[in-house]
């Protein structure tokens, strides 16, 4: 299995997710869930095959992290859908997954097949996978924030805010795991937990931003709009941490995380 075959798996998967999203609008829940899960299985088959043929986890390049991200997006979409029955969530996650798949199809950045010694560690896979999972869940929380801030007509948002909080809490679980796994790994490979490398600094910024949201929600439970703006801000920091720093002059020169 190689990247040449990616389109053969990606197109059927996206079609299945789109069909699932369509049936979610039509309130055909079983069909919506079934098709989305089928799409996930097709996509997972490609990831597994790629993993086997590379003889290392496909987590190294930006293209490979996008691969996981576009897998986790519909996955968190289907979890949110089966829990809260939002008709629109599957359409959004499908659309976002499609964007990331298109980037991988047209601008792959997937050439490097080798894995440097520093990355050969049992921490590598969990570190990146929990990060991508948390990015996907926090992405869903951001979609929720955008929906509530700009598209929602009704004033009462209590139930939706509770759902957004839950997404953030679950996302924070994985974000914290990703960060601390990284720190334990860094101790094993360089003898330091935390080196304030630009990627680490932005990971701390992202983590603190979501902490701020969680604390603010408790001190001002009625201050919905500020809280939702905080969520959008936090997600921008997350993007900066994920790929933004690759374009940041201050980071390019020094970061060990530029890939």
């Amino acid at each position, binding site marked *: 299995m190689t990247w040449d075959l990616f389109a053969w798996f990606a197109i059927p998967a996206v079609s299945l997710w789109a069909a699932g999203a369509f049936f979610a609008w039509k309130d055909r829940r079983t069909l919506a869930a079934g098709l989305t899960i089928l799409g996930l299985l097709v996509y997972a088959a490609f990831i597994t095959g790629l993993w086997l043929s590379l003889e290392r986890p496909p987590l190294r390049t930006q293209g490979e992290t996008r691969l996981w991200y576009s897998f986790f997006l519909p996955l968190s979409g289907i979890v949110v859908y089966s829990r809260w029955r939002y008709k629109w969530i599957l359409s959004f996650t499908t659309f976002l997954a499609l964007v990331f798949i298109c980037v991988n199809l047209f601008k792959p950045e997937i050439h490097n097949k080798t894995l440097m*010694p520093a990355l050969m*560690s049992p921490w590598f896979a969990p570190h990146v996978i929990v990060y991508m999972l948390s990015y996907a869940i926090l992405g869903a929380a951001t979609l929720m924030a955008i929906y509530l801030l700009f598209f929602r007509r009704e004033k009462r948002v209590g139930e939706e805010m509770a759902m957004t909080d*839950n997404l953030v*809490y*679950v996302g924070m679980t994985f974000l914290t795991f990703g960060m601390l796994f990284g720190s334990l790994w860094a101790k*094993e490979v360089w003898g330091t*937990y935390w080196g304030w490398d630009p990627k680490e*600094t932005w990971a701390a910024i992202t983590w603190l931003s979501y902490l701020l949201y969680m604390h603010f929600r408790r*001190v001002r439970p009625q201050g919905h709009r500020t809280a939702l703006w905080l969520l959008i801000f936090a997600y921008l920091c997350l993007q900066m941490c994920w790929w933004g720093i690759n374009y940041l002059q201050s980071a390019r020169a020094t970061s060990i995380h530029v890939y």
Partner: protein
Amino acid sequence: MKEMEHSKRNRNWDMKEGFLIGGGILLAGILLQLLAGPVRWEVLAFPVNLILLLVFLAALIVMYALRRKVRLFEWMMHLQAAVPALCYALGLTIIMGLVAQREEGGGIPWLSQILDFWPFVLSYSWMMVIVGLATINHLLRFRLREIPFLLNHLGLFMALVCGAIGAPDTQRLHMTTREGETESRAEDENGVLHDVGLSIGLHDFIMEEFPLQEGQRRATPKRFASDVTVYTKNGESIDAVIEVNKPLKVGRWKIYQYDYDEEKGTESRISVLELVSDPWLPFILTGIYMMLAGALCLFFFMAPRPGKKEDKP
């Protein structure tokens, strides 16, 4: 219920006060920076850091004890104080993320060495005061449902405080070993040689490479490893292969594969090992594991339901 009483009593002490205090801390930090120069972390080397930690903890306990008399202390252990403190720490960390950090000096004054910048250090310290007080508060009202809170807050407190004040006690030495020879001294960052209390004999430096790709001048390294025997003072001898991601723990030292003769590449006859001793390690690790457990609690218990008592303003 209790939270409600607190917030009533603190009606005129809200987040605004927190932002003012945070601003004051920034100003104080700038003054300190001008008068005393950058933070000199090396001053904190043992036993100063231990004494400082004990004084800090004692101060937190005194503040907690005086909470009914001093409105400031009461307010400090609540969210109204936590949110502004988080904002300041976040703001300064964003500056750190945008300004290239230069350990060797130069760059933008103050901001390019932000870890030694008093406002940065004081803002984080202020946040730790608040985390510490909130921890004591929840610890003394202990119930099972406080466990997630305690894991998250005490874990962060331990990891961050011990990590910061323990940094000057961390020793990081480099030992250059040659194939067939035994070495017992290692160099610090200033080039001073130290006797590390153990000696290491290098049998073989191993370097493997990936096959040369098209257009590549040099192959990508696949593995660095040193086949060694470590002799301790007690007469023990340990045979081991030290490689990247697989350090060896001997006594207080952890030994890492660090460098080799890059010109000779796979033919290198020397291997540079890094010896790291970190006496605060157990506390930092405990903090990290507590935070991991705390994060797991977030997953299982999720956000507080709306309408719950503690959620009310």
